């Protein structure tokens, strides 16, 4: 009888320890992956994962004009110096590639942008450059937009937009009965 209960205790303790270590591991892993609460990256519909097409294709590292696919991409981002594979990883197309060879997810693309635009990356991390929505305080949901949500990474300069209508003048008939 006593022996059995001892054994039970031991197994229970082992279980508890395993559970604890697992939870600690998962919380750490999640914490590392979710440094900023970013929404899903702005992919064209159906284009991700990239590997669904690229896995069966041979890698062509030559800089060229794309004729079959991705024809809508116009490169205006230091295009003389740059090519797709400077940012997209050649082997794992579902990842981006930092300068030091580290592969990162598209949800962490700010790290890639920050490699050149260091001062803007510093401000973005503080919430000054870029846009944050939701709750800035308390327990509510918060969202920090990625660089790519506002700037097209292939041609990042903002396009001109149509402004909303001006306010009615005091003499406007929509303002006077």
């Amino acid at each position, binding site marked *: 009888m006593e022996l059995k209960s001892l054994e039970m205790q031991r197994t229970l303790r082992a279980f508890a320890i395993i559970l604890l270590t697992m939870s600690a591991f998962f919380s750490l892993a999640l914490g590392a992956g979710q440094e900023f609460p970013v929404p899903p990256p702005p992919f064209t519909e159906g284009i991700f994962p990239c590997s669904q097409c690229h896995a069966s294709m041979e890698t062509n590292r030559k800089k060229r004009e794309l004729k079959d696919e991705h024809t809508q991409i116009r490169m205006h981002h230091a295009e003389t110096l740059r090519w797709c594979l400077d940012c997209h990883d050649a082997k794992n197309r579902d990842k981006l590639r930092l300068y030091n060879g580290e592969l990162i997810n598209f949800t962490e693309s700010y790290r890639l942008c920050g490699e050149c635009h260091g001062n803007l990356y510093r401000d973005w991390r*503080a*919430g*000054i*450059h*870029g*846009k*944050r*929505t*939701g*709750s*800035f*305080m*308390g327990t*509510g949901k918060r969202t920090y*937009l990625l660089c790519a949500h*506002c700037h097209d990474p292939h041609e990042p300069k*903002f396009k*001109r*937009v*149509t*402004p*909303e*209508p*001006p*306010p*009615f*003048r005091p003499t406007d008939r*929509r*303002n*006077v*009965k």
Partner: protein
Amino acid sequence: MSNKNYTRRGFIRSLSVTALAGLSLPLLSSCSREEREDFLQKHFLEMTEEEKKQVIAKLEQRYFEQYGRKFQISTQEALPEILWGYGLELSRCIGCRKCVYACANENNTSRYTRQVHWIRVLRLKRGNLINLEDSEHYYAPETVPEKGFVYLPVQCQQCQNPPCVKVCPIHATWQEPDGIVAVDYNWCIGCRYCIAACPYKGRVFNWAEPNLPKDEVNPNVHYLGNRPRMKCAVEKCTFCIQRVRQGRYPACVEACPTGSRKFGNLLDPKSEIRYIIERKRVFRLREELNTESKFYYFFES
């Protein structure tokens, strides 16, 4: 001399009773019970919790009849250790007026036959930022930003030393502990002294009964903020008091497509607004008037 019963005391007593009856007669007989209640409603800061509840219930009923929606009127008080501050980056603002209309939708302002906006986007010639007299806010080009111009959105600057509060003869507008200058629309008599006193043109007057379409109503409101107003009430930006007291960004911050608008707690050294003040080139509009505005414009540096 002969009539000793007719004393001065008696005369004054009967006179005062007559005067009281005469004054209260039109008040108590000629108006309905609802109007009487409205007339005798206290100032918001002097109401007890019980009285606030009664007023809220009355207003919710009235708004339901008028707009056909169930309103949630909050009377949430200022949170401790907070002073709200706003930042706006002029080098990024493109003058698209998205904030103007996001503000109108959030804050239930009148849409037409007196359109009311709380944000005014000024267009100035580049290099001419201090001459606000030369600004234009009816600009309507095909696309923005235009070459050679900068855009300067102006709304209530939530001054720490507000001239509008000083001139109000009946204390219908006052500064909340978190720095927001609030208006009790029911207490306001519509004298418009505050409009004359404001150096930023931050306040607007309801010349007519506001026109707010039923399907564009925002039913989540605050008593001191975006609840539907009435004719003859002065209104202005409240930093979206109904949102920021719950820790949410104001509507204009969320609407800005370039992320020029920033918001935070000036007393929190880790907030976004403190980061801006400590590291960027900031200025405040008409600082020489000593209004101590809490609206910081800044440039990329």
